[in-house]
């Protein structure tokens, strides 16, 4: 039975240390930094679109996009390189940055494969947007966070919703094609936190056209198909991609290994 005294409070309520002026801060961590393959350390990038993927379905689809070239990485010092492979793998704890090859405009893709804490998000967002990378438009792909969502969520539901900066909303009004089509807005009263929130906030503050798309559930072939379809009809329209059945089979195996709903103490 739940212990209401000692259980972690729901997200809208505070821990005692959250309400204490004299709680000591956490020890400072070394700053994150960007490394690019170009020798020119002052070179900045001006992509037409910057796609930042965090959700499992988007990471899986974009990882297998063959028409991209690795051009850099964002180093978070708390994640050592030693565990990563030479050739990028989905299991690496990394944030590699790619440029898409077969496009007449520069599209950059960042695959965020480590978990960035909320406390680190502000610093990471500053690096990805607005300093060396100055995008015209940004698309952020994350999953709905059930702890912050006030509506009903069922594993059988498959959906995606969006949030946009005011500049992106205005560009839709003036005829610019949206990066993600046909989605409803995220419902009022629910929130998104963490790195996705930091990135979209930064876009709003810097007057950049930004879209955050959150999908549900976290894993599953159906949600990956949804995300893939949204990208190919929107931000990646016209881009060559691999679309073989092996990709979906591989993701099905990956999803089963991650889907904790299937874990049960009944089956030992």
């Amino acid at each position, binding site marked *: 039975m739940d212990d209401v005294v000692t259980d972690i*409070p729901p997200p*809208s*309520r*505070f821990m005692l*240390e*959250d*309400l*204490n*002026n*004299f*709680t*000591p*801060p*956490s020890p400072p961590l070394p700053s994150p930094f960007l490394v690019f393959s170009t020798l020119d350390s002052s070179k900045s990038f001006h992509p037409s679109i910057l796609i930042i993927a965090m959700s499992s379905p988007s990471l899986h689809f974009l990882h297998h996009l063959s028409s991209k070239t690795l051009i850099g990485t964002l180093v978070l010092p708390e994640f050592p390189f030693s565990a990563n492979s030479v050739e990028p793998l989905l299991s690496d704890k990394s944030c590699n940055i790619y440029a898409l090859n077969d496009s007449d405009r520069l599209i950059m893709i960042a695959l965020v494969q480590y978990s960035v804490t*909320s*406390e680190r*998000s*502000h*610093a990471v*967002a500053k690096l990805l947007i607005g300093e060396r990378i100055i995008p015209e438009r940004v698309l952020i792909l994350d999953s709905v966070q059930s702890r*912050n969502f*006030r*509506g*009903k969520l069922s594993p059988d539901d498959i959906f995606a919703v969006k*949030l*946009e*900066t*005011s500049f992106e*909303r205005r560009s839709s009004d003036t005829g610019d094609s949206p990066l993600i089509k046909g989605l409803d*807005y*995220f*419902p*009022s*009263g*629910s*929130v*998104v*936190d*963490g*790195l*996705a*929130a*930091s990135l*979209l*906030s930064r876009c*709003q*503050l810097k*007057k950049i056209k930004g879209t*955050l798309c959150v999908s549900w559930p976290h894993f599953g072939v159906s949600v990956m198909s949804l995300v893939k379809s949204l990208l190919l009809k929107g931000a990646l329209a016209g881009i060559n991609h691999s679309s073989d059945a092996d990709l979906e089979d591989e993701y099905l195996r990956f999803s089963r290994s991650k889907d904790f709903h299937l874990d049960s103490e009944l089956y030992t």
Partner: protein
Amino acid sequence: MEFYVEEGKELEQNCSTLILPALSIGNVGQLAVDLLISSLKAEKIGYLDDPNILPCVGNDAYWPSPPGDLTLPLEAYESSSSALTLVQQRSPVVKGMMVEYAKNLANFASSNGKKHVIILSSLDFGRWHTIDVSSGLQVYYLSTSNIDGTDEDCERLGWNRLQEYNPSQRMWKYLNTLAEEGSTLEEDLPFEELGDEDYYPSLPFAALFSCFKAKGLKVTCLLCYCSEGDNIPEGFHLAEAASKLMGLSQNEFHGNEAGRWIIPYSWKSVYGPPADISLF
């Protein structure tokens, strides 16, 4: 902390009173500020960006239309007819950075011509020593008007000064030291074990009170006791108290609830979705 003004907007010089919440049990200050923004139909004029605030984004908290207006964790609103600026905070402060955050907010208020700051917050009912059930939901206050924390306007409104406030008490004095420019929280507190008398100065409202005071601004904290639960009534109570303190007239409000209040659109889901009736 940087302030980003919305396109085409600017901070009004005549809005010399600033209202903001201090994080507390039941999120009461934040609920009260939500009500004031919604009911005064205050206009969003900009965003505050501070690395000491955890990130969050959402859809418009106040109005269903036009759809999709983005909400950020720290936003500034103005009601020029009421000469008010309101700052709403939607997410917690990074652990250990409350005083830094309070200093940054105090710098913002001071450099933007604010003269009076009203902090709305709540206190844990479990800490209430002198229970007076005859007085109903009492409002307590703390003011910079006098050294002992009293204020004539608040007394006239029938509120009680926070009795536990003692400016000579060690933690209040330590907060005053921290509120000065260049001071930072020491890794180990310069005191041994903390006692009951150290509780009130440890709360976020106290950090804000001390930092705004250090900037020479007039500060009034309005507080009420509550427990965790449905804290909307306390939110109404504090919003009502703030409007009385500022002498806001009925016609500055645009609502139907109890004659003046507009319930923010986001409140319709404040307690999550309804229970799954298929369980029954």
